Each structure stands twice: as structure tokens, then as C-alpha cells.
């Protein structure tokens, strides 16, 4: 019986975890700073397509796997930049008042806020909109 270790699943797992983490952080950062979200969305789409092409042409199976996952993550991140803007409009992500695009969102959407209401630990009960800002800890 052949009990050789197959590291391909581990490569995929590590790549998936790291690229999701990176995308998670980068999308929020980029959306908060960008005056226009279209250029970063376009860059993410272009990088995603280039990465998928590289996955297609390489012969190394581990690299093929890692690039395939990274590329799809980049393509999804482009859409997430757009979704992040909607979260800011809903007040589910903090608006950056120094960004003119966000300043406009703050003026036009009553639900938008500069507060990050998620920046705290859970307390184990429902919280009213009035109480929520007071619980932010860090």
C-alpha cells in the first residue's frame, strides 16, 4: 500500500486561507482610501485574469493549484470592493470622512457612519442602535 504524503490539499488550504485573509484586509483598506472604486476593481480583475493565465500555462501542479485559487480570489475581491461600498452606505462598515466619495455617502445615506460598530467583543445580548456606539472598545 502506497502511503506517500500528498501535499496538494495542504497547498490549496494554505493558499485559500492566506488569499482570503489578504483579500479581506485589502478590500476594506482599498475601498476606504480610493476616491473612485473603478480603478482598483479593474486592477483586481486584470490581476485575477493574469493569475489564471499563469495557472493555465505552468506545468507545476502545486503552482497551478495555488495560482488558480489566488486568481479566483482576486476576481471575487473586485466584486467585494463594490459590496464593501454598499456596506459603508448601510453603516455596516465605517466611512472614511477624509475620502470625498465616503463624505458624499455620509451626506446622502443617513445609515452611514464613521463608527466601526464591530470593533468590540460580543456581550451576549441584543443591542439597540443607541447603545451600540457606546460599546466600541478599541
Amino acid at each position: 500500500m502506497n502511503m506517500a504524503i500528498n501535499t496538494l490539499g495542504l497547498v490549496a488550504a494554505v493558499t485559500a486561507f492566506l488569499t482570503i485573509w489578504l483579500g479581506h484586509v485589502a478590500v476594506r483598506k482599498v475601498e476606504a482610501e480610493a476616491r473612485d472604486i473603478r480603478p482598483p476593481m479593474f486592477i483586481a480583475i486584470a490581476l485575477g485574469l493574469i493569475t489564471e493565465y499563469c495557472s493555465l500555462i505552468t506545468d507545476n501542479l502545486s503552482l497551478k493549484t495555488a495560482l488558480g485559487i489566488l486568481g479566483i480570489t482576486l476576481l471575487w475581491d473586485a466584486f467585494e470592493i463594490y459590496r464593501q461600498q454598499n456596506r459603508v452606505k448601510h453603516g455596516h462598515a465605517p466611512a472614511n470622512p477624509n475620502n470625498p466619495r465616503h463624505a458624499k455617502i455620509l451626506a446622502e445615506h443617513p445609515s452611514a457612519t464613521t463608527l466601526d460598530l464591530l470593533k468590540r467583543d460580543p456581550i451576549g445580548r441584543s443591542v439597540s442602535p443607541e447603545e451600540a456606539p457606546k460599546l466600541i472598545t478599541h
Partner: protein
Amino acid sequence: MNPFGILIGLVTFAIIGLGFPLVIRGERYFGYWLWVYIMSIGFLIIIASLFIQNDWASVIVGVIGATFVWGSTELKEQAVRAELGWFPFNANKVKLPFADIIKKWKAPHL
């Protein structure tokens, strides 16, 4: 020119999508202390993938493991979202074994 990587990317995307209900339902029914269980299961699944000889199967199992590990880091924030009313809040959660001990640990958040 074989599309193995691209197909794996798409399959990974679909599997990670399954992580959303895992985090939302898991937090709702068990609370964010579930993170210890979800993370442990995730690492065990990733280790299991090492012993699968078929490449497709190894990758799919590995990515399912990664989804569990990532989900464990989302549970704390999901608990806050539920408290804020962005998701349904369930006050009567099923108490997990060792929940009181896990409560004292710092839940991961990335």
C-alpha cells in the same frame, strides 16, 4: 495548458461559499465559542488531506479544512453582528462542552 488550477479555483470559491452558512448558523445555534471546535475540525481535515492520493480529492478536502479554519476566525464578529440586529439573534443557544473555559480565551479575529 490544462485548466486544473482554474477549476480548482472555482471549486474553492464554491466551497468557501458554504462557509457563510456555517458561520451564520453555527454562531446562531451554538455561540462564538464554537470557534475552538470549528478550528480543530479544520486542522484535522487539512491533515487528513495529506493522506489522500487522488489530487482532486486531496485539494477539495484541504479547501474544506481551510474553510473551517477561516470560519473559526469569523465567529466572534458574527456574534457582534447578531447582537446589532444585522442577523437574527438567538438568546437560547445550545451550550457546548467547555464553553465556560473557552469563553476565557481570546477568540481569533483577522
